[in-house]
């Protein structure tokens, strides 16, 4: 396995994680907030045309991302190239970034729908986006930890061989 290939596989850990995170966020949005709680609405009259397009594209993308990322995960395992910490970092990052985009641009600017109707929306918005932001921060922390860990491993290996 060439160095180039290894770097590729390492990148794919992150990529697969981010895709799964996006899919997970969209899945929770759909099952919990649309179907179980009935907080989110299927359609909101104040939705902008751009909002409709953005919602459509992200919905389709997240659907694809969930499945594709799991197949990538299986592929990494099969190639013994799975770096779980890096993958998990990707999941938090993807989850947080998508929820942040959903909570700010899609809900507020494009007005596809609100988190909940007939309530004071401010605390909902704040919690929604705070959770998203926290998830992004956790994602970055995990990624930097996986990076230092893999550097440590590399150092150990060169020590052993010298």
């Amino acid at each position, binding site marked *: 396995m060439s160095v180039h290939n290894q770097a590729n596989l390492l990148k794919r850990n992150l990529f697969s994680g981010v895709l799964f995170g996006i899919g997970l966020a969209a899945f929770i949005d759909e099952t919990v907030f649309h179907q179980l709680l009935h907080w989110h609405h*299927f*359609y909101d009259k104040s939705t902008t045309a751009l909002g409709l397009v953005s*919602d459509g594209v992200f919905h*389709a993308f997240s*659907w*694809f991302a969930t*499945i594709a990322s799991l197949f990538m995960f299986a592929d990494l395992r*099969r*190639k013994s190239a799975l770096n779980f910490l890096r993958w998990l970092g990707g999941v938090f990052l993807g989850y947080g970034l998508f929820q942040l985009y959903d909570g700010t641009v899609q809900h507020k600017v494009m007005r596809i729908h609100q988190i909940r109707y007939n309530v004071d929306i401010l605390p909902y918005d704040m919690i929604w986006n705070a959770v998203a932001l926290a998830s992004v921060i956790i994602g970055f922390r995990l990624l930097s930890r996986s990076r230092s860990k893999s550097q440590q491993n590399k150092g150990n290996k060169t020590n052993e061989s010298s």
Partner: protein
Amino acid sequence: MNHHEHHIHGGLIPFVHLVLGLFLILVIFFYLLAANRSSRKYKKWPIHRTLFWCLGVTCIGASIMGPVGEKAHTEFTWHMGGHLLLGMLAPFLLVLSAPVTLVLHTLPVRMARQLSCFLRRRLTHLVSSPLAASILNIGGLWVLYTTSLYGSMHQSVSLYLLVHVHIFLAGYLYTAAMIYIDPVSNRFSFGHRAAVLILSLAGHGILSKWIYANPPTGVPRAQAELGGMLMYYGGDAIELMIIFILCLQWYKSARPRTSMSVAYKG
């Protein structure tokens, strides 16, 4: 216009149903015959392919005849259910049953050659590319539901038939362009197919919400809302299966000859 009581269809409909019913039975019969012949000539034709074919043909029948087809004329929600069967589920099942492979197995050599020449023609390539197939499929739906076509379709039998034939053929072309079950001479990369699949799925979802908010001519709001949601979630369910097969095909093609750990040890 919602209740098409004064349909001009009247006496024509039973006749069309009779012809279609006989045709569908014949189609199943020929597939069974061909599968049997292929099993004798080559290795055994997989039983699941035969099953997919029978289910797919049944979906076509159910979408036009029977209770779904009956109510589709008067109720938009049922029309949408029929559309999911005819334009998505039936094509998906039929693609999985690999009819082109079966035909190539059983036709006399000269005709099989002609067919494979036809499949390799420029025009065939163009029409069966993921992008063109998506435009034919999703674009066709946009034309149907956002123009007066939906209304006029219920006034003329020939237009009604034409639209439904298009929905089915475009659905088949689209599915076959995304997942490769039958031999494909002009292959597109997984990335390309995935990107086009995502965009077309988005186009489908956007149209469903558009229908929810802007009922087609003559459709009451409540029915348009329910129909739009059925289109949205039903479409998702079937697209999920297409995505799954596409990813599975990628997974199989990306199979390593040796895993990294084995390579290191060896």
